[in-house]
């Protein structure tokens, strides 16, 4: 689910980052009020735990494995606000250390995985627990069911937002010829492409990962979960309010593209015959009516990648540099196995 660099337009990235700023501010403020002083460095533990959790290979059927994001789990252990900060830091390190998820797309990735995922997951978890009669009176099994449902919906909500972010790209950003500049898939493709694997596989991995670890901590060290920490610092009256407000905002953001969808291809109607239709018409993958898209599309200074006129000389020089550098790199890479052998002999 880590959105890489260049799939989202920089403008989208900027918008998503801007959307994260109040979320981060809110989370920091809440953590400051809620967490006792000695728990502050715990966020570091949470971030490290989140980072390592994403690296953990969760066993699936027949020797295959999958990765979980673990956003809901972090929220269950550290609280949703601390989770938001912790997962953000984990994502930052992933982007920088591994190039896993783009640096410009950091805001968007945080929006999906550090905001939507833990808050939605935790909100659903606590709603279910409340339904069963509140944290104290609920049976353990119900806590685990709540954790499973919460994490499953949480990751699917996050995937849905990622799909929407992808799907908006071809509508908003295209060149003069009408071809997509960034992610080429519109909502009719991106939503099923993201949602089906998440609903079927990733959601299950996430739920399993969340429940087994949450259950282990709850049985062996129950005083360490967020439910317990909250017990020490009694919830204030306005404690629960911000989450539904955020959820509402999130739903609104999600609903906007759904309106756009209605004009083009609708949910679930996307099928094989339709692709054929699109291809025979020779137009791009079910773009929405141009009127809507044109209003948004960027004014492109040089629509084509053909380099002409003034730039010709520069292009030659650059080609020469690229070619030479590539040759050097390739030769160096070829030399690795030989060098390795020599080094072993030398030692």
């Amino acid at each position, binding site marked *: 689910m880590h959105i890489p660099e260049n799939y989202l337009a920089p403008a989208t990235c900027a918008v998503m980052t801007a959307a994260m700023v109040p979320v981060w501010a809110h989370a920091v403020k809440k953590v400051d009020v809620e967490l006792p002083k000695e728990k502050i460095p715990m966020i570091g533990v949470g971030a490290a735990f989140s980072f390592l959790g994403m690296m953990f290979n969760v066993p699936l059927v027949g020797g295959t494995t999958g990765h979980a994001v673990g956003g809901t789990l972090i929220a269950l252990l550290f609280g949703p606000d601390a989770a938001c900060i912790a997962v953000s830091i984990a994502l930052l390190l992933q982007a920088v250390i591994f190039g896993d998820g783009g640096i410009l797309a950091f805001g968007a990735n945080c929006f999906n995985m550090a905001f939507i995922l833990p808050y939605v997951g935790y909100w659903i978890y606590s709603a279910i627990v409340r339904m069963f009669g509140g944290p104290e009176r609920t049976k353990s099994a119900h806590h685990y069911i709540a954790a499973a449902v919460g994490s499953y919906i949480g990751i699917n909500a996050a995937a849905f937002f990622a799909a929407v972010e992808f799907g908006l790209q071809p509508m908003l950003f295209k060149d003069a010829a009408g071809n997509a500049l960034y992610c080429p898939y519109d909502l009719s493709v991106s939503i099923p492409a993201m949602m089906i694997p998440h609903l079927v596989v990733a959601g299950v991995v996430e739920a399993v990962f969340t429940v087994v670890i949450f259950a*282990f901590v709850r*049985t*062996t*060290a129950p005083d360490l979960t967020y439910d317990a920490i909250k017990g020490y610092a009694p919830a204030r009256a306005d404690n629960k309010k911000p989450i539904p407000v955020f959820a509402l905002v999130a739903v609104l953001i999600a609903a906007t593209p759904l309106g756009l969808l209605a004009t083009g291809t609708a949910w679930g109607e996307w099928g094989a015959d339709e692709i054929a239709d699109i291809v025979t018409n020779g137009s791009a993958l079910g773009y929405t009516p141009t009127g809507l898209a044109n209003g948004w599309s960027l004014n492109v200074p040089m629509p084509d990648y053909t380099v002409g006129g003034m730039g010709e000389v520069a292009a030659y020089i650059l080609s020469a540099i690229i070619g030479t550098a590539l040759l050097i790199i390739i030769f160096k890479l070829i030399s690795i196995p030989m060098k390795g052998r020599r080094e*072993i002999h030398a030692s």
Partner: protein
Amino acid sequence: MSFIELRDITFRYEGEESPVLSGFSMSAERGSCLIIEGDNGSGKTTLLRILSALSFPEKGSFVFDGCDITEKYMKVNMNSKLFHKRVGYLFQDPDIMLFNARVRDEIAFGPRQMGLGDEEVDKRVRDCMELFDIEKLSDKAPYHLSGGQKKRVAFASVMALNPEVLLLDEPYAGLDRKSREQLTAFLTELKRAGKTLLIASHDSEILSGIYDERLVMM
């Protein structure tokens, strides 16, 4: 050929210039007891890791019971499982060996893996708890225990697999006087039962009645 034999081993950790072991050889017969002594950083733990096939030397060979233990050999699932069943390894830090919710489950992990029946598993767990005097801890979470108790649980969980060879990394570290005596008595019995013992330890005096050979690492 000996039961366990290392020939001309060179080993270095990735990215390190100088090897921890170079041109190192040793051997141990079936049923013998070997003490491995040496200063901190002399390669005792590295040696045990090689003997438990967790690390592989860049040069030299490791033969166990007539079988060449190489990285390729251990890649085969069945080979590595049989090897680990026969060679038990007690880590220096018991904390990294405990990952189950209860002491009972911790000890039962190995026998369950072996596909033993519930009764047999129960019997092994009970025997091991008795052997290490940890019956009272049965339902506790392993990492809430004290250092010495953790060590006992970790050792019990290795013994439940009934390995033929035991690699013990500082088994006496962190034990009180009474536990040390119990451990020595236990090791003596294991040797009598024909197990092969390779012990990295600073306390060769306490083991003076047991060991056949002392290996000092430089």
